[in-house]
Structure formats: C-alpha cells, structure tokens
C-alpha cells in the first residue's frame, strides 16, 4: 500500500506542477493539502461520525478529470491518501471502447471506550470493461475485503471473554459479457468469492454465482417487453464440502396497452437446498401491477402479489396489496401516496412465528421552485402484527425539508424528522421517540471570502435518553488566483443520559490549502 500511496502522491504533485497539456475545457479538479487536529474526550466507541477520523497530514485530489487529445479520459477522486481513512477512486478509459476503474477505502469501527479495541475494514476493487464491437461488452473485476481487529461484546463489555478477535478476508471476482442488439439484451456473468477466516480455518468457504439476464422487446409487438433470467448461487466449506445452494428463475412482461395504461407482471421462483438442519425451501411469487399515467399530471398504480414459501415443514402463503398515486396540479407542486399490506398465513405446519400481517403507507407533498428552493412534507407509518406470538410493531415518521436558493448570497437547506417506534412482545415493550434536525448554509464567494455551516442535532427519548449534535463551520480565503486557504472547525458531542460514562466530545480542526486545477 505504501507504493500505492507514493504513486498517488506523485500523480498529485505532477498535476500541481500543471504538467498536463493545456487545452480549453480538457480538465478540472482540486488538490487539497491539509492537517487535521483532534481533541477528544470520553467514550470513543459511541459516537459513530468520528470513528473514522484521524489526526495528521492529508493529501487529496478531488473530483479530478482530464481528457487527453486522443480521447482518453482520466478521472480521480483521491481523498486523504496519506491517512488511514483514505477513500480513493481512480478511472481511466476511452468512451465507447474501454474503461478501468479502481477503488480503495478503509473504515475503522471503534468498540473499546479508549479506542484500543476496533476493527478496520479495507475494501479494494477493480473493474474493467471493453467493447470489442458495438453489440458486445466484456466486463470483469475483483473486490477484496479484509477485516481485522477486535470487537467487544455488546452487553457487559467489561466482563472477561468479552473481546473477540476478528481477521478474515473475502476476495470476490467476476467476469461476464453482455450482448445488445436493437433494444434486446442478454447478459451472462460468473462471480466467485473466496472467504478465508484467519482465526478459524474451518469457516473457510468458496462461493460462486452464475447470473443470466435477458431483456426482449417482442418483434413486431414493441408494446410488449419481456424480461427474464436465471441465477445459481452456491457456497460451501472448503474442508467439508458442507454447502447450500439456490437456483432462481425470474421473468416478467411489461405491456404498454396505450400511452397511458400499462400492465406489469413478473414472477420469481427459487429453491434453496442446504446440508443444514433446514433441508430445502421453495419460494414462488407472482406480482402484477397496473398503472395509469397522465404524463406530467398524475398517475395511479394498483398491485397484487401472491407468494408461497415452502420449506417442506411449513407452507406459508402470503397475499400483498399495493396502491400508489401521484398528482401534479401544477408544474411545481406534487402530491404522492403509497399503501401496501401483506398478510402471511401458515397453511401447513406450525412455524414459530405463526400468521403475520404488515401494512405501511406513505404520504408526501412537495412544492419545488427550481430557481428559488423547495419545501416538502412527508409522513409514513409501518405496522407489523403477530397475534400468535404476541408481537407488535408500530413505527411513524414525520419529515419536513426546505431549501432556499438566494441567487446573490448562496443556499440554505434544513430538514427535520420526528419518528416514534413502539415494539411490543409478551415480555417487554420498547419505545423510542427520535428527533433529527439538520441544516446547512453555503455562502457564495464575496471579496475572496467563502463560508459554510452545517449542523445536525439528534435526540432519542422515551426508553432511551440520548442527545448528540455536530457542527461544521468552514471559512475560506482566496489569496491568489486558483488557490485558497480553508479552515474547518468540527464539534461533536454525544451524551447518553442513562449511562453516565457514555459521553463523548471532540473538537476537530482542519486547515487546508486548496489549489484549483483547470486545463
């Protein structure tokens, strides 16, 4: 990885020197050199936004693209190359001919109050595609996941044996082709994954996945579009050949009867076979939607799904109903509503859960003036009820968002959501009432000065009593053409009022020197 860092840093220095050819509109981006200082106090394992923050010198190349005269394109978004929270994306290719994309990022999840117990997940990926002809695309790639470190038990972390060491890697590779001709498509892809657990070799697994997908506008009947496919997935232990596998067939048809009326049917059938105590499970689902649309004015959809889940001990049948609609009385005003319900019925056998009903609905209204801003209100409700085991869930959320665009000054955005949840079972009840308040202000450049502010406030009440907030203030000064200095102040605070030692405060200051590239 050190070599990778050196290459990236060299690339950025090369760009800073403006060594690339200057031609009008051929490239753009920012180089950022900065230093981050963190002053923190309290339990590091409770405030998620700071888990992946590091002190030190950061070097970044942001939102960079460059077009070579030959038609080749280079793009990069390389954040904090020199720090452990690096997040790198690099692409190279020629439109319509080939492309290569690389990415790497790391995430630290802290479990110990002192920050000494944590896991670090490193993800590295590459993908490549090539068109040998306009009808055929070849593609492939790989994705490597590595996680190592230690976690602590969620409950009673202070007890002995509460720490678990983790060290595994999962390497996934894929390759495939896609054939296109006049709106028709057939794609075949093979994926394989190798899972290796460095602490327990008996968990090592080999997985593979075959995927076939097709899309077919029917010849002479272009109002009918068929789609379908097949998938096979298998995972097995390397040492014992113990495995499970799934075969899936899916298909559907979209029938555009008129410009306004369409019917959409699809089915899916899958069978999972396993060497475990659950021998095999079948699923079969049929879904149909009928949609009526008046372009630009409104639309309504009615849907029905019937599905069967059969694991050879229990057979569960479910009926789901769906209705949604949208209406635009004016170009800048929009109303939306959606309702869905699902009733599961155990037809054969006695499963633990018994029969279960779920319903949800959502309502939204939005007023959107593109040049001036928008305001939006949303409400949603989700319920789940299971009389057989005495379990019930009720979730409600009200959300409001507004944005204001001030042509001369900048833009302002704010959002608020209020959610309540109640989970009941025969032994206990859990209730929460959460508030999330969010706001941001971005000011346009004025006399070489820029400014921005962003804040989030979170409060969880009822059975929990948590308060957290963070504030991010940014001030910038352009001292030479295409160069500016930026100072960012972040304040994080977390308090769990039910557990007195569950608090966290951090002051984080970033000082950045930014050079804007324009070729």
């Amino acid at each position: 990885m050190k070599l990778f860092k050196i290459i990236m840093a060299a690339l950025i220095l090369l760009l800073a020197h403006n060594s690339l050819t200057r031609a009008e509109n051929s490239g753009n981006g920012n180089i950022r050199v900065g230093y981050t200082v963190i002053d923190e106090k309290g339990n590091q394992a409770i405030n998620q936004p700071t888990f992946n923050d590091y002190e030190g010198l950061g070097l970044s190349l942001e939102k960079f693209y460059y077009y070579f005269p030959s038609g080749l394109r280079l793009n990069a978004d390389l954040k904090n190359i020199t720090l452990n929270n690096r997040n790198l994306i690099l692409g190279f290719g020629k439109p319509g001919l080939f492309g290569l994309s690389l990415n790497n990022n790391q995430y630290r999840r802290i479990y110990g109050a002192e920050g000494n117990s944590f896991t670090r997940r490193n993800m590295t990926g590459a993908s490549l595609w090539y068109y040998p002809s306009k009808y055929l695309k070849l593609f492939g790639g790989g994705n490597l996941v590595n996680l190592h470190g230690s976690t602590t038990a969620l409950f009673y972390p202070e007890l002995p044996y509460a720490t678990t060491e983790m060290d595994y890697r999962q390497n996934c590779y894929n390759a495939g082709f896609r054939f296109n001709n006049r709106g028709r498509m057939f794609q075949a892809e093979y994926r394989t994954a190798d899972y290796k657990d460095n602490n327990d070799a008996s968990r090592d697994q080999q997985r593979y996945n075959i995927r076939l997908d097709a899309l077919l506008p029917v010849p002479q009947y272009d109002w009918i579009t068929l789609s379908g496919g097949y998938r096979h997935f298998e995972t097995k232990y390397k040492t014992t050949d113990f495995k499970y596998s799934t075969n899936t067939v899916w298909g559907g048809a979209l029938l555009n009867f008129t410009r306004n009326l369409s019917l959409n049917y699809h089915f899916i059938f899958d069978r999972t076979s396993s060497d475990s105590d659950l021998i095999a499970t079948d699923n079969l689902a049929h879904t149909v939607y009928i949609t009526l649309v008046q372009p630009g004015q409104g639309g309504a959809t009615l849907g029905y799904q019937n599905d069967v889940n059969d694991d050879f001990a229990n057979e569960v049948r479910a009926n789901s109903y769906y209705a949604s609609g949208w209406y635009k009385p004016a170009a800048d005003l929009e109303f939306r509503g959606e309702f869905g319900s699902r009733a599961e019925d155990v037809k054969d056998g006695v499963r633990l859960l018994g029969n279960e009903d779920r319903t949800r609905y959502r309502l939204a209204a939005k007023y959107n003036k593109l040049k001036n801003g928008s305001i939006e209100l949303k409400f949603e409700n989700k319920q789940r009820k299971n009389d057989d085991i005495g379990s019930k869930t009720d979730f409600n959320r009200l959300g409001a968002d507004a944005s204001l665009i001030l042509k001369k000054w900048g833009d302002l955005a704010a959002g608020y959501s209020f959610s309540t949840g109640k989970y009941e079972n025969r032994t206990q009840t859990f209730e929460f009432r959460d508030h999330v308040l969010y706001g941001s202000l971005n000011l346009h450049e004025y006399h070489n000065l820029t400014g921005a502010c962003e804040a989030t406030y979170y409060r969880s009440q009822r059975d929990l009593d948590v308060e957290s907030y963070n504030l991010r203030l940014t001030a910038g000064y352009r001292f030479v053409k295409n160069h500016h200095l930026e100072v960012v102040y972040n304040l994080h605070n977390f308090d769990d009022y039910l557990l007195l030692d569950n608090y966290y405060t951090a002051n984080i200051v970033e000082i950045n020197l930014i050079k804007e590239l324009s070729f």
Partner: protein
Amino acid sequence: MINKRRFPKLPHKAILAPILTLLLISGVSAQYYDNQDLVKKSSDCLTCHDDKAASLKGTAHQMKSDVSPKSSIGVGCIGCHDGWEKHLDNPSAETITNISGLTPDKQAELCRRCHATVHQAGMASADPHLRAGLGCFDCHSIHDNHNRGLVKDDNENFCASCHTNVAREFKQRSSHPLVSGNIRCTDCHKMSDLKDPTLAVGMDWTCQSCHGDKAGPFLYEHPVVYKHAVNGGGCTECHNPHGSPNDRLLTQPDNGACLQCHGVPPQHRTMHSGLGSRFACVFCHTEIHGSNSNKDFLDPDLGVKLFPNCFQSDCHGTELGQ
C-alpha cells in the same frame, strides 16, 4: 433427502430457449442508425448546436466524430433526438424530441436503444421508480455531466435528494458509513435487483458481500438469518441497515430483538435462578447467526465463561458437538 415436492423441477431449458431465440430475431421498429449515418447526419446539427457537442466531450456520449475510429460505440445527435428530419426543415423546439420531456416509459424505451442492461430489465419489471412516475432523466443527465454513470450528482448519498427521510436515518446513533463515503446507496440497493420493491433484498446476498463472516451455511441455522439465502430477507428482522437509535443497528435494545419472536423459556427463570432475566440472551447464545456446534446457538466456551458444568448437565450436554 427431500421426499416431498410441491413445485416442479426448474424448467431451465424451457425458459432459456425461447429467450435466446427471441434475442436473435430482428425486426424491432425503433430507430437505429449505423456509425456512419450517426456521424454524417449529426454533423448538420452542429452547424447551430456546436456547444452541445462540446458538452458531451469526454463522456460516454462523446460524439463519434470526436473519437478515434477504434471506438466501438457510435453516438450522434440523431440517435437520441427523434424528429431531426423535420427539425432540419423547420428548426423550432416543437419539431425535435426533448428527451427529458418524454414520459418515463418512453424515456426508458429511447435509452434502451443503446443501454439495454440489467438495470433496464429491472426498470421494466420490479423497479418501483417507473411506477412512481420517474424516468431515466430524473436521476441521469447527459449534457455537461462528468459524473460516473451520468447521474446528476456523484455524491454518495445522491438518492437522498428524494429519499430525505432515509437520509436522516443515517444520522441516528448507529448507521452504515454512508456519510463518511465508505459505502454508497447503490452498494446495497443494486439497481439490477428484481424481486423486492425495496431493491435491497433479492437474490444478490446483499449483506453477505461485506459481512461474509455472518453468513452460513451452518449445521444449525437460525431460520431468521437463513432467510437471507432463501429470499434475501432475514438480517433486517433484527437490524435496521440505514440507522438505528440502538447500537449495532439493532432495531431494539437489550433482549428486544430476541423477544419479538421468542419468549423467555420458563426453565431459564427456575434452573438458572433468574439468569434469563439478568443476562442478555446473546451472552450465552453467542452463535446467534448460526452454529456448527449447538442447535441452541450457545457459546462453545460457555463452560469456561459462565458455569463449569454447562455442557455436562443434562440440559445442554447432549447438544454440543452434534
């Protein structure tokens, strides 16, 4: 051995054969041009609209005349903007197709001339965006766009511009690292998944691609976890992947997630002197995602951790190592 089948065997060949046959049949009525036509006829458009050609430079829709002949895909104005013949005679806004003004299904139909992909197959089947009256141009734009996939905004949480309530779930106590840029919405919500309207589940083992350590097969499966292999559900019964007021994305704190399906067995209250009440379930049932040693998902080290005779007693001794 399975001795009871309610469904027939998978009809692989019967399904694939007609699909492949239809693929090879020609005769679809939409407009298609070869590369030569695209370059030649689109050059007339540039007389007035040369700025539009410049706005495509370096993108996937770069004009064919701007790239080397080795490039396989041809792009020209007339490939997307139907009605160009009339527009040449009468150059008004009414005579040319403005794609973003088309209905969603017509947008999809037009883009599919070149972009017949799995994403398109999804849009034509289970995808809820089309039903909600949204088309390609609600998320993508073509001219003056240098973002990956030509999405309107390349930020990790671009979807949040509509799904604002979901975006705020990521600001709760625990959440997946979207805000830090380590994941993107599309890492889980594959736009090619086809079964569930929420797109996140389905037959792509969404959770498993990062959390392979939690995935089976196990000799003793926890049926709720096993559901992720069967129909893509499972994990979300106990975890809220966007964000949660509880630690580790749990929908409920303490034993709540367990008790939503399981009561505390009476034996726990008597034999363990209230152990079931005083300890969290997962303190003993550590292998809660599945176990290769114990059908009750008990910690293999329980005898060391808690009482020396856990596995020697009549209650648990016979189950270990099965």
